[in-house]
């Protein structure tokens, strides 16, 4: 359980953040300059708030009213930086064991070999950080923070400095850490995809203020949140269930009350809850049942909102059975189809536009 209620003024910037979350990954989402890294530094103890408190499992880490400030080295909070910050004078193994050395012996619950195996860094142990690639460095940094057996793990845009290929390698590792090591995580990012994939709880910061709090679908599923993004970053988040697979074609069927989606590749056993991100630019709208198309994925709903933007329109559809689907179409198409709020509509999505990157498995229930 992490509870945050802090205020800090720094060089003209004012941060006021309050949120609490008990389970899974808490994502701090916002653009640069939103105050999300500042919040992370306050949690880690690298900065002191002017006012307020931060509590972890009921214990205050800082509480200005009560005059409590636990220095960073006594907080037992692991921090993974954007640029790994491994100690250049130590080997990978020494880096990994650094934090472990300072953890009280009886609290060294996290097993060294398990971490090495999870992160796939066994072959790097003898090397020095200067001889590692960016992705390898970040794996070691995650291992180093994890092996200090922290009560809370902080990630400060851990993937921002990596290329797409490396990101795809590291994301599943963070998911694995989330699901297998029982350490609560606060994850700072400006990438909706990362946040939706990893987090069950999102705090959206903007100009130092909390703008929205909640599950990823609620937080990102509003027109206002969509209009903040550029056209290509607008997307809907759908909660669905694995309902079957077509092994011969390598497809997985996902269920939603409004229809089904076929996903290329596996997404877990039948019944698994998954979150799917659908880019608004990948959605085609149809009025009435479409004829012969290569599209296998159709979701039905009702138009609830139109936001005109130059030649384009952002169409918001309330899907049958809950959830919102956003589609970017041209104003010309809108007028030709005569789409108006209240109309029934079908959203079509290409399977090829849904890949495993767009899928997240929410943390399984403990026990």
């Amino acid at each position, binding site marked *: 359980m992490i509870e945050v209620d802090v205020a800090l003024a720094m060089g003209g910037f004012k941060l006021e953040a309050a949120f609490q979350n008990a389970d899974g990954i808490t994502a701090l989402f916002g653009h640069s300059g939103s105050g999300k890294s500042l919040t992370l530094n306050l949690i*880690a103890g690298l900065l002191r708030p002017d006012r307020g408190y931060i509590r972890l499992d009921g214990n205050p880490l800082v509480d200005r009213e009560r005059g409590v400030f636990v*220095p*960073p*080295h006594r907080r037992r909070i692991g921090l993974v930086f954007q640029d790994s910050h491994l100690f250049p004078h130590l080997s990978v193994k020494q880096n990994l064991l*650094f*934090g472990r050395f300072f*953890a009280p012996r009886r609290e060294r619950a996290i097993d060294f070999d398990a971490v090495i195996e999870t992160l796939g860094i066994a072959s790097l142990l003898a090397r020095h950080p200067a001889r590692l690639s960016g992705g390898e460095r970040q794996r070691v940094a995650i291992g*180093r*923070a994890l092996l200090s057996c922290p009560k809370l793990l902080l990630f400060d845009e851990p993937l921002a400095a990596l290329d797409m290929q490396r990101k795809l390698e590291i994301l599943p590792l963070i998911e694995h850490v989330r699901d297998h090591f029982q350490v609560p995580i606060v994850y700072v990012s400006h990438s909706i995809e990362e946040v939706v994939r990893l987090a069950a709880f999102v705090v959206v910061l903007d100009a130092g203020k909390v703008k929205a709090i909640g599950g990823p679908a609620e937080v990102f599923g509003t027109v206002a949140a969509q209009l903040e993004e550029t056209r290509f970053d607008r997307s809907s988040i759908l909660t669905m269930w694995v309902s079957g697979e077509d092994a011969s074609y390598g497809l997985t069927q996902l269920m939603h009350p409004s229809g089904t989606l076929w996903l290329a590749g596996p997404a877990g056993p039948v019944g698994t809850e998954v979150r799917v991100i659908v880019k608004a630019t990948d959605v085609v709208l149809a009025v009435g049942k479409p004829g012969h198309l290569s599209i296998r994925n159709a979701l039905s709903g009702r138009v609830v909102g139109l936001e005109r933007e130059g030649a384009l329109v952002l169409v918001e559809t309330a899907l049958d059975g809950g959830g919102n689907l956003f589609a970017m179409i041209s104003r010309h198409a809108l007028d030709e189809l005569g789409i108006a709020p209240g109309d029934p509509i079908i959203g079509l999505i290409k399977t090829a536009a849904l890949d495993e990157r767009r899928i997240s498995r929410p943390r399984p229930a403990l026990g």
Partner: protein
Amino acid sequence: MLNLSPDEWTAIWLSLRIAVVATIASLPFGILAAYALARWRFPGKMIFNGIVHLPLVLPPVVTGFVLLILLGRKGVFGGFLADIGIVLSFRWTGAAVACAVMGFPLMVRAMRLSFESIDKRLELASGTLGASPIATFFLVSLPLAFPGIVVGAILAFAKALGEFGATITFVSNIPGETQTISAAIYSFTQVPGGDAGALRLTAVAVFIALTTLIASEIVQRQAERRLGSFE
């Protein structure tokens, strides 16, 4: 080879001894001062910085005279020191103090730069991993500043070998006690026919200086290789 006289050998060993003692004794203080100047914020920091650098800009004779006033037998602290058995004036130990004071700003400057060039976030990372500030200093800051610490120590050592003004003012020029290579060369130039002796000691001084520089270069390169910044 050079046919050095026993007195000249004495001056050489004395110089080396004074320089080594001055360097080693001032090392902890130098590291502490350098780290404080690089990382801490405290009231009077500018004044502290000024005092550390004073011997660099003052005429050496003035520094020597101040030492005499402070630490001489009848000086401000000299009487107290004599009571607890420490006599510095006109002793080789006094020469070591003078050399340490003169070399101190050079030592601190090099080390300070080295501490300042360490990425602060490495020290912050160490803190979040549970290391106390003291543990962080010894496990992260000090090893990373090692090349600069070597440079600082070498500079102080070289300065101590060549120190003349402050030393001769504070502890005079007593053969066998405070007469270093520099002082001996000076003495040679003051007597007729002393040029040969001065030349011999000059050759020795050049040899020691070169050896020191090469040794420091090797140590530094090894340290940098260890830190992986050679690519």
